[in-house]
């Protein structure tokens, strides 16, 4: 089978797949079953209200499946470790890149605190509204990316990233172990989580704390990945 025929075959199969998808979505939306069949969601909502957290998804991600989230951030850690091993060059020559103009530099300095604030907001409000640690961390990493591409001599210190990441990982496991000690389950909710407090900022016991920890870890790891990719690009 030559390449052209293969391409034509993939075209046809792609069109077939796309049309099947379109028909399915037509069916789903026109029957409005997307909005009526949420009984599983209702059951989860009823369960999650025991923890006093307004956002059911956060309760599932951080509390019911908290151990899996620990594995997830471990996967992210291994990914950033691999990128650092392959790409990091501590003897990178700085100042080879062309200087960016003053508008970009000034605006990056102006915008970075706003982006940081927005990332922290999304991290802290993860148990009240959609969002949370993963999203907030990536927003902080995008702010670091803005500083990195605008300024020539900006550099995230390796030690800071190491300290933040180690602190976040250790405190995640530590909170889980305290839960194991006090309530006989890993990541047991040992802080007060009254249902009457639901929807307020200080509610849900350990769940917002864990999401903030996840945010710190994701933010530092993503900044590390972005910085390694960019610095490797400068002197190759």
């Amino acid at each position, binding site marked *: 089978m030559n390449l052209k025929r293969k391409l034509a075959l993939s075209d046809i199969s792609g069109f077939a797949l796309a049309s099947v998808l379109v028909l399915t979505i037509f069916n789903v939306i026109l029957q409005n079953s997307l909005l009526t069949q949420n009984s599983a969601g209702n059951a989860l909502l009823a369960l999650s209200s025991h923890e006093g957290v307004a956002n059911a998804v956060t309760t599932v991600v951080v509390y019911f499946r908290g151990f899996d989230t620990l594995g997830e951030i471990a996967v992210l850690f291994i990914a950033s470790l691999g990128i650092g091993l392959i790409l990091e060059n501590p003897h990178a020559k700085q100042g080879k890149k062309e200087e960016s103009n003053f508008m970009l530099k000034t605006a990056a300095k102006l*915008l970075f605190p706003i982006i940081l604030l927005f990332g922290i907001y999304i991290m802290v409000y993860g148990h009240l509204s959609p969002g949370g640690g993963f999203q907030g961390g990536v927003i902080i990493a995008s702010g670091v990316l803005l500083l990195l591409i605008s300024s020539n001599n900006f550099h995230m210190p390796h030690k800071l990233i190491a300290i933040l990441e180690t602190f976040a990982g250790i405190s995640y496991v530590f909170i889980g172990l305290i839960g194991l000690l006090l309530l006989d389950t890993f990541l047991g909710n040992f802080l007060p989580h009254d249902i009457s407090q639901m929807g307020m900022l200080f509610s849900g016991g350990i769940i917002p704390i864990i999401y903030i920890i996840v945010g710190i870890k994701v933010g530092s790891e993503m900044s590390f990945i972005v910085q390694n990719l960019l610095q490797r690009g400068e002197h190759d």
Partner: protein
Amino acid sequence: MQDILGFVFLSAGVGAFLVSGIGLLRMPDIYTRMHVGTKSTTIATLLVVIGGSLLEPQWAWKLLLLAVFILLTNPLSSSVIARASHKISTPYLNNSKRDALKESEQIK
């Protein structure tokens, strides 16, 4: 009265968006497209923000923040994209007369 004024501002903003969309299709090279795609969308977004704050007065402060943010970022991104495309020497129209960025670099 306030509602009518708000709707007038909103429709003016949507009209500016429409003009910028048509301009993106009609303009010949990247620099004129950049002109259309950011100048008129900035004014269109500001008009929509003014209309929204007239229709819902309790949102006015949040919308003011939004307007400041748009005024900060939209011209900046257009400037950066235009400079980058000038740096990789994207061709411009044949009947363009002056290249001010090149002249300023030669003076330096």
